[in-house]
């Protein structure tokens, strides 16, 4: 007669070598952890960096890896669409695309600049202004009557 525990343990004795290997790897992880915790060993930074990365991967990325993969795919698609649209617009116009407001302000600035430059470069071609003394209105009317 056997107890349930005896039966259960006997049935799984075959897994012992695999469990030994798991135990050894876990103990090795303890050793690594100890080395990284000591802080005096030169290898500390070398072992700590993969540990942090592994932890980051195991705890943040891996539990919801499908969601992360989906997000990454979405971003890649967005970038592809964005770049393809930009290429299309520039190939159609042949010029870089600007917004309407920017174009208007640029045109206004250009106009102002042209006016200023035109005023400066214009030579003084006209005669100097003469002194103008208007005659009285009564005098002009007399000459016409005569």
């Amino acid at each position, binding site marked *: 007669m*056997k*107890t*349930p*525990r*005896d039966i259960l343990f006997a*049935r799984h004795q075959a*897994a012992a070598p695999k*469990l030994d290997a798991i*135990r050894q790897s876990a103990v090795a992880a303890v050793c690594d952890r100890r080395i990284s915790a000591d802080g005096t060993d030169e290898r500390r930074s070398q072992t700590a960096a993969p540990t942090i990365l592994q932890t980051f991967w195991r705890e943040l990325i891996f539990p919801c890896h499908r969601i992360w993969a989906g997000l990454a795919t979405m971003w890649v698609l967005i970038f592809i669409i964005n770049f393809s649209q930009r290429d299309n617009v520039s190939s159609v116009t042949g010029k870089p695309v600007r917004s309407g407001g920017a174009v208007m302000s640029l045109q206004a600035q250009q106009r102002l600049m042209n006016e200023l430059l035109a005023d400066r470069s214009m030579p003084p071609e006209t005669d100097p202004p003469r002194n103008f003394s208007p005659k009285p209105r009564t005098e002009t009317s007399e000459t016409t009557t005569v």
Partner: protein
Amino acid sequence: MKMLEVAEPEQLPVPQARAGEPAAWDALFRRYQLPLYVYVFELIRDEQAGLDIVQETFIAAVRHIGGLREDNKFGSWLFGIAHQKCVQRWRKRKEILFDEIPETPDEFEDGPDDLLIRQEQETEFMNLLNQLPLPQRSVLLLHFVEEFSLEEIARITETQLGTVKSRLHYAKKSLRKLLEAKNENTA
């Protein structure tokens, strides 16, 4: 058959493990590797997944040993980690975890060794164990494998003490009934 030795909780080198001594961890893992694997395997019925869960449990134990309040509860704490990993796996596979057992029995009299099985009944016993619903099987395995107290089983499975009592009672009852029925059929 040679009985496997079960060390007393007081003899386990938990304080040394807390200090990060690899030898202490080796002793602890050596002590619990097979019981833990038996428990996990009999719940999820997958060898590779069982080994993976044992490994994950060991790594989690090393990382979170600071969260263990009492050293003499190391065993139930370790099984609690493994149980949670099994629950996560069940949730991923969308298996039904809990069945409601309506009433709590008044008496709870049995020890883990009260159920003795003849050699020719061993395969039958394993088949019957696998027919039990998961919550009942979980409680029964913890009872058989490590002789955990009801309070410890309640802590491991994160259920009420009354629920553990009723699950264990009904699991043993149904197992005994099935074994008796098989005996009658063979006789």
